[in-house]
């Protein structure tokens, strides 16, 4: 299908008209669409797995854990809560305004645009969609062209399950994105890199469109010297799971690097090697358990990170690459130079630098001297260190003693801060992100407080002074002329 300006113009016009018809506002519509989305995911598990395998070499279990299962869970949760979320929130009104009532009503924003990313091409397209539907919007999804199988899966399957009057998929690359950004949207939800995010937000500014930006950053894992060997082993296992597990490190909340005390670094490296071998076998390329690099461009970028001679010298495990299969072995770097690209850019791949510090507390300063990450992971039993990490660093989220699982927690908002983005979603937060909270106040036409109005007098000023202090007794005295003034 040829995407041109005219086509888009027409699409947006149709969608807006449909939104105006009010069809998407009803609870029934929202619930139907969420149910249909669940149906889509359940009935197409194999097709989704297949697309993910084609685009990224994702193993079906990994695909289920990170995408299919997670989407199902998220949609089920929204389905069960949407009615509750839609209910107006009552708010207390001071007696002064009696009789009155106040409430906050969530209303849909209108026509929203979702840009998803290639690393979790199904999850990052459908999870925001769940929020947009729950909030009653009409939606255009622009999947990433860098995961073409998933993109075309979405484009082909969504119209078969969901209301095409309200939910459309538009495929394409940068040119299509630019075209899309020329239109006026009521919200833009973007997942991707800070560089592109700047374009998106600048374009949004022209129409005063609010944006949610889900970006990334170098997410550190702080590994304290846990005295109990089994704790330490478990921590390392979870680090491996949080580095190579999700899409071979191509994840915005994946671990970017590990901070550890010098004295345990060699032990850490040994354990890492052992667990990598256990998870991925002696020949990881053969294992099929680990995703490949998404495309040639990213493959080259990652290889270039390793080409720096000082970085190459720091490799203590792995380092082999295979261009034909776009595969890079799980690679561990011990203390690479801090000014090398591998430590200044987000890695977004299967390379794990280990940075040693003298005292684990120094990692706080290390993290603070860099842009705010989307996630910080810390393995420690030291409550003081936990406290310090919590209060002295800033990041989208902090997870103690595990990796990645915060993403699955519907009750926690997911979103960045600073360079890792702004706005948040998941569960109720997705609903809020795609809603406008309208403040509504009801008054009756009887009972009037005269001092609100001119002509102004001293009596009125004193009345208001007491009223704003909510000093009702004082007010009574004042009205009766019994109050004394200094």
């Amino acid at each position, binding site marked *: 299908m040829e995407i041109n300006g005219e086509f888009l113009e027409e699409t947006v016009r149709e969608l807006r008209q449909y939104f105006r018809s009010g069809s998407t506002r009803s609870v029934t519509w929202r619930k139907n669409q969420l149910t249909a989305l669940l149906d889509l995911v359940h009935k197409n598990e194999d097709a989704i797995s297949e697309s993910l395998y084609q685009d990224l070499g994702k193993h079906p279990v990994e695909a289920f854990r990170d995408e299919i299962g997670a989407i199902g869970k998220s949609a089920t949760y929204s389905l069960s809560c949407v009615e509750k979320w839609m209910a107006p929130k009552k708010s207390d009104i001071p007696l002064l305004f009696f009789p009155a009532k106040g409430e906050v009503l969530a209303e849909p924003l209108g026509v929203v645009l979702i840009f998803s990313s290639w690393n979790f091409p199904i999850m990052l397209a459908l999870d925001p969609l769940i929020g947009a539907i729950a909030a009653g919007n009409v939606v255009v999804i622009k999947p990433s062209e860098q995961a073409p199988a998933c993109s075309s899966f979405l484009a082909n399957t969504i119209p078969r399950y969901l209301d095409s009057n309200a939910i459309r998929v538009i495929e394409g690359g940068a040119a299509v994105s630019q075209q899309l950004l020329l239109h006026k949207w009521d919200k833009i939800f973007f997942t991707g890199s800070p560089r592109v995010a700047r374009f998106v937000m600048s374009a949004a500014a*022209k129409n005063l469109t609010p944006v949610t930006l889900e970006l990334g950053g170098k997410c550190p894992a702080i590994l304290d010297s846990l005295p109990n060997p089994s704790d330490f082993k478990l921590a390392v296992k979870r680090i491996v799971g949080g580095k190579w597990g999700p899409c071979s490190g191509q994840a915005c909340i994946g671990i970017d690097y590990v901070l550890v005390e010098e004295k345990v670094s060699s032990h850490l490296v040994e354990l890492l090697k052992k667990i990598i071998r256990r998870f991925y076998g002696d020949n990881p390329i053969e294992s099929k358990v680990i995703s490949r690099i998404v495309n040639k461009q990213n493959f080259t970028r990652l290889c270039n990170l390793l080409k720096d001679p000082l970085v190459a010298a720091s490799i203590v495990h792995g380092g082999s690459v295979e261009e034909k299969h776009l595969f890079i072995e799980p690679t561990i770097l011990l203390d690479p130079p801090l000014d090398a690209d591998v430590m200044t850019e987000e890695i977004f791949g299967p390379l794990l630098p280990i940075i040693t510090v003298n005292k684990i507390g120094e990692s706080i300063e290390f993290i603070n001297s860099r842009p705010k990450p989307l996630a910080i992971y810390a393995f420690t039993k030291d409550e003081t260190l936990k406290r310090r990490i919590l209060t002295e660093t800033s990041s989208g989220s902090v997870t103690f003693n595990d990796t990645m699982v915060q993403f699955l927690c519907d009750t926690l908002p997911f979103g960045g801060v*600073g360079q890792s983005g702004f706005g948040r979603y998941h569960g109720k937060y997705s609903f809020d992100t795609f809603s406008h909270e*309208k403040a509504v106040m*009801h008054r009756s036409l009887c009972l009037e407080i005269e001092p609100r109005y*001119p*002509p102004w007098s001293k009596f009125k000023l004193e009345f208001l002074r007491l009223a704003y202090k909510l000093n009702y007794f004082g007010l009574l005295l004042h009205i009766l002329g019994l109050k004394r003034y200094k």
Partner: protein
Amino acid sequence: MKSLFLVSFLAPSAPVGSRPFSQHLTTKCFGKQLHFHSRCVLFSSYTCSATLSVVPDLQEKETFDGEKASLLLKDLRKTFNSGKTKSYEWRISQLEGIAKMLEEKEKEILDALNKDLSKPGLEGYISEVSQAKSSCSEALQELKHWMKPEKVKTSFTTLPSSAEIVSEPLGAVLVISTWNFPFLLSMDPVIGAISAGNAVVLKPSEIAPATSSLLANLIEGYLDNSAIRVVEGAIPETTALLEQKWDKILYTGSARVGRIVMAAAAKHLTPVILELGGKCPAVVDSDVNLQVTARRIIGGKWACNSGQACISVDYIITRKEFAPKLINALKEELKQFFGEDLMESKDMSRIVSPTQFSRLVKLLDEDKVSDKIVFGGQRDEMKLKIAPTIILDVPDDAMVMQEEIFGPIMPIITVENIEDSFGIIKSKPKPLAAYLFTNNEQLKKAYVENISSGGMLINDTVIHVATRGLPFGGVEESGMGCYHGKFSFDSFSHKKSVLYRSFDADSSLRFPPYTPEKEKLLKAIFSGNIIRIILTLLGWS
């Protein structure tokens, strides 16, 4: 350079127009010394502002450029990074400083408002000082509660674990305020920014110069200047500020400038709150208590800074046969409020500036409009006064119906059926507020459901923004983001998710090598169905 800039910042500014920057003199006398001991000046200058204030006003105006803005920000970041502003005690001490300032300087504030807008003292008190006071006292009262991490339930998938959401300050934030409520719209966001523990720069509007300079003075005197500053100025100063990387920008003003602010913010990925305006309609049904309705409309138009308010009633829609009654009631009540000669009333604000005055006059003098005036229309260019003016049934393509009026002109649009008003409102960009006067429950319900606006108030005007517990903010052309009370705190905070896990009960399920059994169990767990999980574990599914 650095030291000069700091001195210029710390020098208390006073009279309108020319600020007594002391650096000219200081440079002349101690230029070299300052140059070599810039660091020393940096610290000492915080304490020596009192001595500087006696330095006579001999300066030319020093421009505030990008370089200075960047130095200022560096300074604030240093304070922020020290962690000082994060503590509950610091926040409380600053809020108390504001409370004290409001208590002690009420007269000065009201005088400044009067100078800038001829705002009557009582109106200034009601709409600005008292609002700032209640905002500040709410923050003082609730801060501990707001700062508490919010515990949340965790799901089955991540058991065993506990989770909470921690509010942390964003960093250094910029508040760009406006001239119509120059005091409140400066202090209210600043109160929010401080409550959330941020360092903050306030840029008051140069169009209300007396209040701007008063704010610069008061904030310097009452608050911690290592974290809270005022930069006075117009476009060049704002541009210099906008070039910097802030952690949040709150802008109050027009949609046109809102776009510029957001585009500038995009370069640094800075989130923004835009408080804009729009044409706020008031729909008046025919079953209402006329007198109360008229008074409340006047209260939300002419008694509200002469209509120069973003939430002020912009136009009225009513039924054709009801319009004459409503107009009569408005005339009657206007006289009750402001006396026989409306132009002479001391109880009404004037138009802020000659620019705004001529803009409003142009709206009135348009051909399609000038013969529709049914009340008022008088103007006095010298005093910048325009009488409360009612115009009946102007065509929709008249400028007065196309742009936000922001002044004492009130168009009344008549319709056959009151429901026809919905179409008119929806044909325009979403307003910041929408009002409805009726006793008809069905109409109320339809209005609330069908009309989209920032806030909505049934049977009254304006007071919803003074109501605790309601967010204040627009949608679409009327802005994005919201503040007031807890919402201010939230807007200036980052909500950090924190998940605590233990080392117990680890499941190898999540980890490779992946097996069909793992897949099955994983599916059972995600389904959240406990029986399915048990069956799977037992190998029976």
